[in-house]
């Protein structure tokens, strides 16, 4: 199984449920990784692949909802909750906190697999976006401090002359910085650079009055 094969993590304290889910997941050609507790899952070094987490609501060592809160901080795969006796308040909380689905045991395989696929697709997109952002950040680190200073003026649409006046330097110097920025950030056009800055969270400089 190659590393890009989607992986389904299962966290359930009941070994029977773990085994059954593992079997079902494998039968549709997905990779399953099962854990008896949240702690085991958190310790596990996760492969770099689109993933999904099937989480039992009632877990030893903290409820599934607590784990969900904890995972929201980091790079978590989308969560599908399963429960022995789900109550409405917990399911509402779970879904609000971003769970894909909330299923009561015993569950229908179609429903579970549909939820797993949705989750994996979501994760794939998220992973895509995350890797793009990581690439942009890498490029941004290549800029010199002066270039980082110039960037907001460029994406705000300032002419080199205006920027030079603001930063107290020559129009030619700004032109050089601008060329370097476009090259280092691998931007094909100003519009592309503006989108990149937006994704990096760099606000355009305000126009002085």
């Amino acid at each position, binding site marked *: 199984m190659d590393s890009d094969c989607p992986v389904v993590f299962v966290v359930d304290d*009941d070994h*029977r*449920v773990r*085994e*059954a889910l593992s*079997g079902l997941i494998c039968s549709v050609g997905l990779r399953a990784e099962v854990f008896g507790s949240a702690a085991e899952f958190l310790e596990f070094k996760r492969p770099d692949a689109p993933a999904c987490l099937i989480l039992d609501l009632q877990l030893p060592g903290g409820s599934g909802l607590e784990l969900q809160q904890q995972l929201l901080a980091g790079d978590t795969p989308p969560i599908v909750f399963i429960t*022995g006796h789900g109550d409405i308040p917990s399911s509402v909380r779970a879904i609000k906190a971003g769970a894909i689905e909330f299923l009561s*045991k*015993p569950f229908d*395989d179609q429903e579970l697999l549909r939820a797993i696929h949705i989750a994996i697709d979501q994760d794939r997109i998220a992973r895509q976006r995350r890797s793009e952002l990581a690439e942009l950040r890498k490029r941004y680190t290549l800029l010199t401090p002066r270039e980082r200073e110039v960037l907001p003026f460029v994406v705000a649409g300032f002419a080199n002359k205006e920027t030079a006046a603001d930063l107290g330097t020559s129009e030619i110097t700004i032109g050089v910085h601008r060329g370097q920025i476009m090259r280092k950030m691998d931007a094909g056009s100003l519009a592309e650079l503006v989108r990149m800055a937006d994704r990096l969270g760099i606000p355009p400089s305000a126009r002085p009055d």
Partner: protein
Amino acid sequence: MGDQPEDVAGEIKGLQRCINDLISLFALPAMWSGGEPSQIVHTLLDALLRMLQLDLVYARLQDSPGQAPMEMVRLAQSPRRTAQAHEIGKVLKHVLEADPQESPALMPNPVGDGDLSIMPMELGLQGDVGVIIAGSVRADFPRQTEKLILRVAANQASIGLQGARLLSEQRRVASELDRRVAQRTAELAAANDELRKEIADRKHAEEDLRSSEEKHRTSERSLRELTETIPQMLWSAEEDGTVNYCNQRTLDYTGLSAEEVRDAGWLTAVHSGDMAMATRAWSGSVTSGEAFQCEFRFRRAPDGYRWCISNAVPLRDPEGKVIRWFGTIVDLHDWREAQRALHAIQTRQVAVRADVSLAFGQKESLEAILQECMESIVRHLDAAFARVWTLSHDARMLELRASAGLYTHLHGAHSRIPVGQFKIGKIALEQKHVLTNDIINDPRISDKTWAETEGMSSFAGYPLLVGTRTLGVLAMFSRKPLTAGTAEALASTADLIAHGIERKNMEEALRTNQERLSRAMQTATVGEFAAAIAHEINQPLAAVVTNGQACLRWLAAEPPGIARAQDAAERIVRDGKETAEVVRRIRALFKQTAVERIELDVNEVIGDVLELLSGQAARRRVAVETDLVPDLAPVVGDRVQLQQLVFNLLLNAIEAMDAVADRPRQLSICSRQPSQETILVEIRDTGTGLEDPEGIFDAFFTTKESGMGMGLAICRSIINAHRGRLWAASGEGAGTTFSFTLPVRA
């Protein structure tokens, strides 16, 4: 309810003892006749000390005005039993001076330790004869029967003392006469001497004689004046028994003339049935010279024979020869009648009280009890019919609950009477009884035609009161006039019935509460069980279903994954069996629905429940530790109930630790056999502990957001049904230990 027959037997025994004591008291005057007041009081104090097992009984007699009172005391065995009467009197000063209506009081025991319950009883009208103070260290002193005995004793003593006082008065009068006669005799002798000495001087002598006779007549006249002024029937007789004088009061009483009563004429006023006895007694005294006393029916001129007592003492000359008899006659009739009536009423009162107590003790329904009470009133208190109404829940209506005698139906015109309307409704509203012996002319009675037709002459209605609350009305009609005694008996019966109804109502409320509790217990327990069961079954069931689906997918794959499908199928079989096992266990848990009493091993019960709760405990990160002593003696009980008990206590302990984050969540269960007769189980958690270890057993007490707070109330009712004990103890922030004991099979 189980102890009731013993209480009734005890009460009957108490009443029997009371009647015996009363009879003894009634016999006392016979012992006292002719006795001194001090003697009378001594025997009375001894009798009371013994009958009522008193610790102290004190008497003070105001013998005669101006003289120091006579004080006497009797003590039970006590460390300071040498105490003198006047010392005790000093201690009791405040009781003696207090209003006797405010008794009984409590005071420090002057002859021992602790407090003394005090009951003062006045002797004579308004205590003019004296006072008796009875004291006991018993807190319940004086009980109802003891009060009765004390009252009767005080009455008896008053009569006895008044008799003694009369007797001493008679003696005083007799000795006064004696003195005057002696004086007269001496004077005569002196006159005779004078006569003999001065025989020569005839004239002088005659004069002397005349003057002496003059003196004699004056003396005779003043004696006569005295005997006619004393408000007593007095008489005198010759030494041979011939009556020679009766005072005017005696003549007025009998309607006989002075001539008619002379000699044996007085006997014509004695009832023919008593004549022989009276004659015998009189001639006996005349022969022996001993004081005469006799009770006989004596004819009072206007209205016939009445019981009287006659006493006579002889006057003797210096040689001891009887010269004359002086006697009194006292009309005892009213007193004797009162005694008889009192006795009869007391007997009837005791009978009605016994009936009422028995009815409340033995019957279940209030209707049956009240019916019994009404029948007793008809039987013992001369009622033509007796009825009782109780107040409806909204306190607006009086509802007829029982009727005995002439009418026994409960439906009809009088079955519901608005409070405040008609005589019955007014009795309830005004909380005042109505008594009348003149129905026909009493404005309060409306059904006069009916009363006349039925020959009813009297009506009595009493409110049934507990404190200031009206519970109902008791009423009776009678064809005979009501006596004070009947009224008193009715009043005390009304009181007894009111308190009986009150107790019955409280029992009813308690039972309703218990029923509600047991219903809630079923709901609550079923709810908690259901959640646990759902989880226990859903886990393996989820595995079975998922494995089945995986299996199908492996089989449908191209090429089919036979080996993987087989693995899944094997897991299906395994988990299916496990599910069946869970179901079997649960069925076993619910199998005995009826309460059963079988021999049980407490450890097994704990094991069964732990199996069901282990998942729950694990999920809540609770470590379970057991310390079960093997080979416990079996207990007898209902398996399901005891499982519910342990289930509730364990679940409670697990939930109590939900908020614990700073220390391990530890649940310990241990079983012990601390004695031959008892099994002890302790369930300890490391939760936050309890503020009110007793209050938690109340229904609807809860510290949890969810749940009805029924769990522990249920536990308590289960443990009570098994004659065990359940309690909770809580250290500060160190968790809670629930302990229960169960008796070992006898």
